[in-house]
């Protein structure tokens, strides 16, 4: 019922779904879980870019990003048998690992206070940053379009939290709004993104 409602809400259908040309990632993951190295090579081909991209977005530093991306891809190999298709897509599983690792690295850095000082310049960089990369991929175009459909507060909260790797109290501080406000803006914004992108879960 809700799925048809989502289709009606989508601003425009856009070009053909990227997912049409996607390989069978769940199948590949199942093979990897059985120790299939060849399958992992194929999986690497599909996921290394997204994993590295997410990590690089949060960590910024290329050397650190490479290091964490390697950890994440190895964890995907190691924990392939633990992927549960009922819980989400393989890409979501992999990128959850990637994003969490990157954020953990940020949080554990003793230089976190220094990072907060850099927050102001980051804030002005963020919109342009998203625009640069986003325009080049089909996924990116859709994300950009749906982000544009949010209120400014929803959009900035989400970008700072996800791409910036900030905790929501930090986001509240950066945006100068109340804690409760940030929490609800993030959630409302993500729900609108979900419906805009036509996410089928």
């Amino acid at each position, binding site marked *: 019922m809700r799925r048809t409602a989502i289709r009606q809400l989508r601003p425009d259908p856009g070009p053909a779904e990227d997912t049409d040309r996607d390989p069978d990632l769940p199948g590949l993951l199942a093979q990897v879980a*059985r120790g299939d190295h060849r399958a992992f090579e194929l999986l690497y081909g599909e996921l290394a870019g997204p994993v590295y991209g997410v990590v690089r977005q949060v960590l910024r530093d290329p050397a650190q990003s490479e290091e964490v991306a390697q950890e994440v891809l190895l964890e995907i*190999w190691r924990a392939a048998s633990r992927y549960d298709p009922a819980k989400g897509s393989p890409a979501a599983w992999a990128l959850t690992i*990637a994003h969490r690792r990157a954020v953990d690295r940020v949080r554990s850095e003793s230089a976190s206070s220094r990072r907060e000082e850099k927050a102001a310049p980051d804030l002005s960089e963020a919109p342009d940053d998203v625009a640069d990369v986003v325009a080049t991929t089909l996924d990116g175009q*859709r994300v950009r379009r749906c982000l544009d459909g949010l209120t400014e507060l929803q959009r900035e909260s989400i970008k700072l939290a*996800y791409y910036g790797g900030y*905790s929501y109290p930090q*986001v509240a501080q950066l945006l100068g709004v109340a804690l409760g406000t940030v929490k609800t803006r993030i959630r409302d914004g993500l729900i609108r993104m979900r419906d805009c992108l036509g996410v089928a879960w």
Partner: protein
Amino acid sequence: MRDDLHALSGSYVLDALTEPERDSFERHLQHCSQCEDEVRGLRETAARLGLAKTVDPPPQLRPRVLAATYRTRQLPPIGDRIEPERRRTRVAQRWLRVPQVPRLAGAFAAAALVVVVALGITQVVTRHQPGVAQTASTTISRVVTAPDARTETVATSAGGTVTVVVSAGQQAAVVSAAGMRSLPSAQTYQLWVMGPDGSARSAGLLSRTGRAGPVLASGVVPGDRIGITVEPAGGTSSPTTTPVLAVPV
């Protein structure tokens, strides 16, 4: 408090919660299926945010990661276990019965049958080690071209099919398997010949890819049954799991 907790779902999927909040939210998720549903959808949405930032990593990352996988053990799946006990009677019911030798007229026939049985028993006694190459008194081609050769193709409970060609005259069977589910490296398929008394002797290991053969099982006599089980890599001296080869004949 309830509303406050639910409001954390968005921040949770963006990894924007503090550690203690993340822990208590995850605990809450375990008994809130509505939250679990919402989190699932928002997690997919967050993944789209991530996919939008896809960037090819430096080329040197690939060989490093691939090399590391060869040094890294994988986690076993949760809930995976091999049946600890062999259920003997169920094993007996599921095994493929070797077709009886057609009755031949005369005393010569009776003598021939006795010889066949005797040979079968001898081979039971001498061959205990799984995986040891068969010192076959016949060959695969002789079995499949024998005048009394009979073919059975049976679906297995591991997927795929197994084809068994039996020649009672050659006292042997040729077994081929295809399409059985491939096994992790810690397991293998094993071929067995089981006598009417319930004893089972190994006829060798089959490839864990689920595609194997043709493999020769010698010393097969009327009344014997042929089965395939999943065993730990390296095989066992007697079956430990319920055979994947489905009957009946």
